[in-house]
């Protein structure tokens, strides 16, 4: 039962990640008329050139990046959509032009490891907590009930202390 809950949590987390990954890759509708800088930047924002590491393409001041932006503008003018343009750059320069690795092959690990590690931590915490209460010789349910009781003299004292603080 326990296992099932964990598995379903893990599964839903993975689904969430998948979904958020796919949002990024959504198509932009082709736009008629002259291409504005904002349209170019909207695409360039999530791209990186291989030379200027860690500077997004939309704000990179180098000449090479300005040329890339012009290339995006040309492609937009030709009626390409965001997905096509991204695919074009990926084909020429590799996955590294994208702000996040596309979720395929080895890249899956980048999205899967952190939630798994976090869930493992949560599980360890839960286990540690449970074992402590068991080793204290107090069944968990009983502990809850006794601690929730307002007739507990210790609790009253504690509250008194808190009020006095």
């Amino acid at each position, binding site marked *: 039962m326990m296992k099932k809950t964990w598995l379903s949590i893990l599964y839903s987390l993975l689904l969430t990640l998948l979904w958020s990954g796919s949002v990024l890759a959504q198509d932009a509708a082709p736009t008629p008329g002259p291409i504005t800088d904002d349209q170019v930047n909207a695409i360039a924002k999530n791209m990186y050139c291989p030379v200027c*590491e860690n500077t997004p393409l939309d704000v990179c001041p180098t000449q090479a990046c300005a040329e890339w932006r012009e290339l995006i503008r040309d492609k937009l003018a030709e009626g390409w959509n965001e997905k096509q343009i991204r695919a074009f750059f990926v084909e020429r320069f590799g996955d590294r032009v994208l702000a996040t690795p596309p979720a395929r092959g080895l890249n899956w690990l980048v999205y899967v490891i*952190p939630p798994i590690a976090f869930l493992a931590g949560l599980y360890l915490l839960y286990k540690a907590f449970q074992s402590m209460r068991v080793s204290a010789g107090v069944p968990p349910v009983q502990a809850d009930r006794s601690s929730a009781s307002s007739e507990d003299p210790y609790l009253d004292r504690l509250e008194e202390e808190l009020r006095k603080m």
Partner: protein
Amino acid sequence: MVADFSFGALVIAFLIAVYGIVAAIYGARNGKTEWVESARLAMLLTFPLITISALGLMFLLVTGRYEVEYVAQVTSNSMPYYLRVTALWGGQSGSLLFWAWLMSAFASAVTLRKWDRDREFLPWVIAVSLFTLAFFLFLIVIFENPFSRIWRMPGGEFQVTMFQPAGAVLASMRDGQGLNPLLRHPGMIIHPPMLYLGFVAFVVPYAFAIAALITGRTDDRWIRITRRWTLVAWLFLSLGLLLGGRWAYDVLGWGGYWGWDPVEISAFMPWLTGTAFLHSVMIQEKRGLFKHWNMALIILTYALVIFGTFLTRSGVLSSVHAFAQSAIGPLFFGFIGLTFSISMYLLLRRWDSLKSEGQMTSVLSREALFLLNNLLFMGILIVCFWGVIFPLVSELVSGQKVTVGPPFYERATAPLFAGLLFLMGIAPLSAWRLSTARTLGRLMWKPFIFSLIVGLGLPLLMGIRNWAALIGFFLIAFVSSVTLYEFWRGILARHRSQGENYFIALRNMTERNRRRYGGYIIHLGVVLMAIGIIGIELFQKETQATIPQGGTVTMSGYTLTYQSLAIFDTTDGRNVARAVLSVEKDGKKIGELYPRRDFFLESQQPMTIPGVRSTWEDDLYVILVDWLPVSSQGASFKVYLNPLVNWLWLGGLVFILGTLIAAWPDKDPEYEQARLRRRVYQADLKRRNAEA
């Protein structure tokens, strides 16, 4: 001459450090205090020696001795003196020397404390500190020598070595390449020293932890001794991160303060574990629980400190291949592996003696909430670590390079940060040992209702529909009301019982428990920072437009009119393009902005300085993207509207203030007693004299 002398001092410092390690361990093992004392003196001696070396390098930098390779790399004739001094940490070998210098200063300061009660720790603290120091000195002396000079060989070619090759003469260089222009900024002058101070100061609690593991004195004494050191380390690291953010905002010209760059993250990671540590040591102090975990956290923090220095200094970030080529990369890797393995071995050896003294009894007790807080910090750490490492893993395994950029980190860490904020609201209200939903609920309901109205209701009324922002504002209202309520309860209690006025009550209360109330002030700082972060992350607007002279760009009530553009050369080697834009808000003229682009001729590097109009409501942040150089008729501007971002900086100041309050030294009780005795004695003497 100066270079030789400075290098000599460094070599001696290294040899003395090695001697100190041996003497400390030998003395401790055989109970020979004279050897331990000798090790302590060795530790103390490293500081003046490295100081000589660092001052020597500063002298070479300031006087422009370009035959020294490092000087030629990071300074030039056009640089002012203060920048030449700061060039000490502007390049790789210099910054390693700077690191070692700070390290020896901190370690020496520790050895000067009173050791009466803690004699058994001393040799091991010295050994661990000196081992770290010796490693850095070894790197500098053998691989990254900042004093290496450029020699002209008889054949005419150049060679870089420390000592004169046969027949070679010193190359006469007229000018250097100069410091990276991005680093020529006031923020960059103090940002690296702050980070480094934070890094090296964390070595102190680590050294004590290891000493505790080796000596078997695994009670919370090591934590009590190093509490203030840890806070100081944390203070510097926080300051370094904040200054780095401010520098990025002012200089990098991408409208933001934090770009999830691996170098930033590598400084952020020890901060994360350090923050978790600061919270979890309280569990050990109050309840005697989780001693293993605290040890593990400080070991991890130390490893991340070295890892952070390693990431920024080894070249590993740009490519795995750069790592393989860099001589110091594998050494750093080896050092981290070695110290981590030894630390973990020691921890496992003492596992049984580190058993908890009590049991955790309630899910809502403060210790349980602190543990949850630790889990969230670890979650953020894992995201950061994995994001930084993954491109290297990918390159190593599949040969494919990938970018793990801001969207990954933002999506993955945002819920964890929100969780931390929520805990910040609950934990101060929960009691140690035992808290129930009922007791917590009784304390929480008022702030909870208040924050529902103010944090959720008000933004909804103002038309904000972004659910992430609504959650954020609710949490901000919740944490601030709980924290302020805590202050108010304390003040009121003192006012009633002691009859103090509210201000005096606040002061006395804070003074009596600085860690607690300093901590709350830090929480308030975080809340203010969160306001700024929500503002800029969720409501930032941007637009870019190419406009002719006299043309306008409009955004959210602001109208910017492009007035003019001037292009000129400066005496310090820059070609500057500076635009003048007049700014109107809702039809009223409110000022001018001067975005500019500096092009550094020596390094052929552009630098974008934004024009910023900053208010508590928002920042109007304009970047000059491009212009038509011949006619200077048209120019492209990128305009950002960064709502509420100033609250981030204000929050940073409050944060630092809180840390200072928490870390401020208490009066030493022994010193106080001595002072009291002296006073009584003097009064007595006076009385006797008067009687006589």
